[in-house]
């Protein structure tokens, strides 16, 4: 217990605390820190998480609409932006209905058990170099995984306490699925962490501050593949399509939250969208460079401003970092929504087959490959005495070399790493550019189609493959 006071006292004061102590004259005592943290939660986090959820719900409905060749909500507010607000008000005013034979205590407990972990996981997400709620959490990534596994209990209890066959089916399927997919999820995260060497999310962000080729997804080919296995496993772990059997709307009425209405239902809804944001946040922080831009400018300017002690510059860098992080996360959230409204839903046995017989061996092979890669390929070594000690920004590559200069890397014996990273970065950028060009082309050419809503294809002749004489 004696360690905690020393930890609270000696840690380098974060930017916010420094601003508070300098400008407002508040000494950073533990009581003031705790009060500031509580105020941050109440004033910043809770509204931001709710806004994120509301925005995601609106965006999902718009994306769904446009993919299905219709418009989505467009009446309430400018482009339907206030639809979520209207829905929230409606849900608040609904009758609070608890089924007669339901287990009342568990029925009431379940939404909170589902929402609280999703909300608590936000405290480790690195929105900016100094904009993490708890930057000293040395097990950042693992904490998010751990706290999201409590959400499973919330869903199971919701299904059970509703005393409803469909809910119980949904809850059981969901528990199976979420628990099974945690294994490839964890292994994919380990592959990324092995490339990084730290679980602390702020250090991960600083590590990738050298430019797009330092992003951990391009570190070695196994991390590249691990990004995709993580993506698939996280879709299943978040009961998101195509793995949305627990709430499969066309089969189980509404799965485990059939009997929930009003505010209780909105807790589940918020939990799902908050969890989408969180898993996209882990992917961004771990694989896609966190708050860093592709050119490494954030790391460069952060290093400059830190050495010169320019607080205003640091604050601006932080704000830009938050913007970049949120943009990347929302891009990944868009991909999740895109996949949901494109792919059909497999059966539960197909889902578990994909987990145990496809993703798990693949993840294990990636783990083995990444471990061998770490052993054989010489890494860029940072001249910090102890990894993870003290200042997270000691992982910033700009402090020790120029990350875009081949000769700097060669001087440290990390030629293979640099070449592989550049190669993978080129592949990644080319793939991204190709996909974006394709989407853009589809968007542009789709506008010219006159027959969209009013002229469906005539189906009086079945395709050849279905007709057998």
């Amino acid at each position: 217990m004696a360690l905690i006071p020393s930890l609270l006292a000696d840690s380098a004061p974060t930017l916010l605390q420094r601003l508070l102590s300098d400008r407002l004259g508040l000494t950073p005592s533990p009581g003031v820190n705790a009060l500031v943290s509580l105020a941050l939660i109440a004033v910043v986090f809770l509204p931001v998480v709710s806004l994120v959820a509301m925005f995601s719900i609106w965006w999902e409905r718009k994306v769904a609409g446009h993919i299905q060749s219709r418009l989505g909500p467009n009446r309430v507010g400018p482009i339907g932006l206030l639809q979520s607000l209207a829905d929230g008000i409606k849900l608040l005013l609904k009758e609070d209905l608890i089924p007669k034979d339901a287990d009342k205590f568990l029925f009431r407990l379940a939404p909170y058990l589902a929402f609280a972990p999703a909300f608590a996981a936000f405290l480790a997400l690195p929105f900016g170099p100094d904009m993490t709620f708890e930057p000293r959490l040395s097990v950042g990534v693992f904490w998010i995984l751990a706290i999201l596994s409590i959400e499973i209990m919330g869903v199971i209890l919701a299904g059970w306490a509703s005393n409803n066959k469909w809910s119980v089916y949904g809850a059981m399927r969901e528990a199976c699925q979420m628990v099974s997919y945690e294994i490839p999820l964890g292994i994919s995260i380990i592959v990324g962490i092995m490339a990084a060497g730290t679980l602390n999310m702020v250090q991960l962000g600083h590590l990738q501050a050298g430019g797009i080729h330092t992003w951990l997804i391009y570190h070695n080919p196994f991390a590249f593949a691990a990004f995709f296995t993580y993506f698939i496993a996280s879709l299943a772990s978040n009961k998101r399509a195509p793995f949305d059997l627990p709430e499969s709307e066309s089969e189980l009425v509404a799965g485990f939250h059939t009997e929930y209405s009003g505010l209780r239902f909105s807790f589940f809804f918020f939990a799902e969208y908050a969890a989408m944001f969180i898993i996209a946040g882990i992917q961004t922080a771990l694989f896609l460079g966190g708050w860093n831009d592709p050119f490494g400018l954030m790391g460069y300017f952060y290093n400059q401003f830190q050495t010169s002690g320019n607080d205003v510059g640091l604050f601006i860098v932080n704000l830009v970092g938050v913007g970049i992080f949120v943009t990347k996360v929302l891009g990944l959230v868009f991909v999740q929504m895109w996949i949901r409204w494109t792919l059909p839903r497999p059966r539960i046995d197909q889902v578990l087959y994909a987990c145990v017989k496809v993703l798990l061996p693949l993840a294990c092979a990636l783990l083995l490959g990444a471990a061998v890669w770490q052993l054989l390929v010489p890494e860029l070594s940072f001249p910090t005495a102890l990894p993870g000690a003290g200042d997270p920004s000691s992982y910033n590559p700009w402090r020790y070399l120029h990350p875009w200069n081949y000769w700097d890397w060669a001087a440290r014996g990390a030629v293979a790493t640099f070449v592989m990273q550049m190669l993978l970065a080129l592949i990644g950028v080319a793939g991204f550019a190709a996909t974006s060009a394709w989407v853009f082309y589809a968007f542009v050419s789709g506008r010219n189609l006159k027959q969209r809503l009013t002229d469906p294809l005539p189906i009086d002749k079945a395709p050849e493959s279905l007709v057998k004489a």
Partner: protein
Amino acid sequence: MIALVDSISDQTLTTALFYLFALLSAGSALGVAISRNIVRTAVFLLGALVGVGGLYFLLNAEFLAAVQLVVYAGGTLILIIFGVMLTSKSPFSRFEPKLGEVMIAISIGSVLLIALVMGILRTTFASQELNITTYPLVQLGQVLLGDYLIPFELASVLLLVVMIGAAYLAKGRREIPQRRERTEASETMRRWS
């Protein structure tokens, strides 16, 4: 007001948090023992495990706390809940212990409680400053694969044995499929499923 907040020291904060988590663990454990509905006992067990996880966080053992949440709350407890839900006759079956059983349980429990409390109060616990020089996780990893390698490997062998046993038990018997007649419907089914 600011002076009041300023006067809250680290000790107060840690004590307050300790009481919070201890109350959560102890209260939930009490709920496990007292509750009459079997699913509710499992839910109270969740409270107890999360409380213990919080206590680990207070002791600065962050990795252990996260592992506690993942393994216990997210794994073992799910298993227990499955077992409870799939084998209970109805959601509302209640325990109805007889008075004699309750008296025996209370007496044994109180004897144990008194013994434990007296033992704890009489021992002087040497509080040792932790020797954390590097990143705690780095030290943990080095120790796990260095000093404590054999227990680590034995634990993984044990887990392997458990997995094989569970897979064998859950396998079930496979029936020999009988010849089915080929109708048009079954052909379509075979082609499109």
